[in-house]
């Protein structure tokens, strides 16, 4: 299968290891990966802020580059939701409506592509640590991704998964919300971090780097030794 891998802007700039792990895993499974240069940003920041014209200007440019392969795989539930769920709405009644629908239909969040679409849950990974999993809200509620990451983690050698009581509670990131209402965002993050800490895990694993950016930012400010890591990196450890 030829797969267009869309590495979100902040993963590109801040967490390249997560993106590299996705390429290596997909290629090891025998797929051809393409990463067009002009996949910059999905347009979610202006979209979520209400600036849909500006979001369309960004998304309209990258939309044609997402076409031409068998599937589009996105390394974040949040950007995945943008393409799969919100592009058809954003481009409704525009000349790109059909293309947006076509792309949406073949778009997958990374873990769901592996476990849901390909039916692959065993990747021969080894990660001998106690971890807890954070469900990013967009992946969980817009895309319904809940079982796939856990099915993948279940087959990682040495890994012990301890669920936290607030696994499905928002970490408080929410894009521009985090800087528009930092006091609320921070309080939400504190609740999340406290719940993760309670589990005694060494790592918080997630399929969404944007949440991990927020959680890690708080943990390190708190001096909390708990670490964060993207699911793809865990699945790529030997």
């Amino acid at each position, binding site marked *: 299968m030829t797969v267009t891998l869309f*590495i979100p802007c902040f*993963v*590109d*700039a*801040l*967490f*390249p290891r997560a*993106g*590299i792990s996705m390429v290596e895993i997909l290629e090891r499974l025998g797929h051809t990966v393409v*990463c067009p*240069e*002009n996949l*910059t*940003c999905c*347009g979610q*920041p*202006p979209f*979520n*802020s*209400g*600036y*849909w014209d*500006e*979001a369309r*200007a*960004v998304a*309209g*440019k990258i939309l044609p580059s997402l076409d031409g392969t068998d599937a589009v795989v996105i390394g974040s539930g949040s950007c995945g939701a943008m393409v799969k769920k919100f592009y058809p709405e954003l481009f409704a009644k525009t000349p790109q409506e059909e293309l947006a629908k076509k792309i949406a239909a073949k778009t997958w969040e990374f873990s769901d592509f592996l476990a849901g679409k390909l039916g692959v849950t065993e990747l021969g990974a080894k990660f001998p640590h106690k971890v807890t999993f954070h469900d990013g*809200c*967009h992946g*969980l*509620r*817009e895309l319904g991704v809940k079982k796939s990451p856990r099915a993948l983690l279940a087959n990682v050698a040495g890994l012990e998964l301890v669920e936290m009581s607030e696994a*499905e*509670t*928002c970490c*408080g*990131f*929410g*894009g521009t*919300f*985090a*800087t*528009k*209402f*930092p*006091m*609320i*965002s*921070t*309080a*939400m*993050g504190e*609740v999340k971090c406290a719940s993760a800490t309670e589990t005694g895990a060494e790592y918080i694993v997630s399929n969404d780097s944007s949440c991990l950016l*927020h959680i*890690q*930012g*708080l943990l*390190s*400010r708190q001096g909390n030794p708990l670490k964060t890591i993207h699911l793809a990196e865990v699945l790529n450890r030997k």
Partner: protein
Amino acid sequence: MSFVSQFKSAASVMAKDLRHRKIIRTALGNYEIVRDRRKASFQDWQGARQLAAETKWEAVNHLDQYLEEFVARIEARGTKVHWASNAAQAREIVLQIVADKKAKSVIKSKAMTSEEIHLNDALEAVGLKVVESDLGELIVQLRKEAPYHIVFPSMHLTRDEINVLFQNELGSANTNDPEELTMIARRALRSKYLTADIGITGANFAIAETGMISITENEGNARLTAALPKTMISLIGIEKVLPKLADLALFLPMLATMGTGQALTCYNTLYGGPRQPGETDGPEEWHVVLLDNHRTELLADAEQRDALHCIRCGACLNVCPIFRNVGGHTYGTTYSGPIGSVITPHLRGLQDWKHLSNASSLCGACTETCPVKIDLHHHLLQNRRNSVKQKSSLGEKIAFKFFAYGASRPGLWKLGMKMARWLQPLQTLLQRTPLDPVKPWTQSRDLPPLALASFKDWWRNRK
């Protein structure tokens, strides 16, 4: 101070209040356990939600017909029906009835519509004594506060605080035993029912088919409010109408499940008219005030019409991480939490209240829990879009135009990434000073360094 400044300053205080966070977490932790137990007793909870949403959709889409049917039936039994377009009209109608009856005191059962139109203030302004008979409402009334939550008005208070309040306001003995505190309130209230000239209620549902209203409660106070005074007034939002009596078979257990985690609340009463010839009790006169107050504007909004499905169960507030961290009073609205953030801009003006739609991470927990399937968090997104379309902020507009220009030009984007990498050491130097350009982030959180080589750098090099 503008509404947004009030919200931000209240949120700044509440979000740091660890005592508040703990009280709410404990209260809602208990709620979650009983709610989930009740949900599990439905044979098919998702099917029940779907049916409830379809029933409300039918009711709301034929609101004119169902309202007329409802009104014709209750009028036939001698009820006086009043139509109020807005809050001021609704207040005038009630004040006129009060004046006609030469009433001196009013007893009320819980009604969010009365909060919405600020009825108590209007009644007290003409010299009436108004008593809230719902325990939670009585507590916040004694504290001169608005209800904290649409179902649990005083959930932010501990029993020790209620003990002190009752000692000060009702002259009761020192106790923090919940049962004794309830008995203190009960004793204080009993005489009020007997002396009140008018009883004011809300309604949870209005049944078109039979011309009845349904009131759900746990304390029996609404029954006494409706039965004892000679005149009864019910203040009802027009969206409360349900087509058939049989619809209650779904909606009563659903409201109890999501509202309080009960199979059914202790009392569910149907009222179909004032005292009929030959009957021994009930009010001599019953006035029903049907309140629009911008609901028809919401009805005209095809995208957000489903917000009129709301049965005011409060379930979306209970799961909302924003509500849980800032509390009900911070919103400064009658309806708080996700449903409040969705409808307040429609009820009170988009530009004044758009900040509530922005104050959300769009996590969607509200939409997931809503028993009548209101697309709550997407409506927040639509409110954001609509507010920008109507009037955007110049700074934000320029920023996003600039962003869109760069993000649609890969060469420029690449250059921007490089520049950000060069500039980051400067930001690190400025961190924790007022000059930090990303201070809203860094005042409470660290920012990781940009990678020396981005993913795209790696991808280009390996080809």
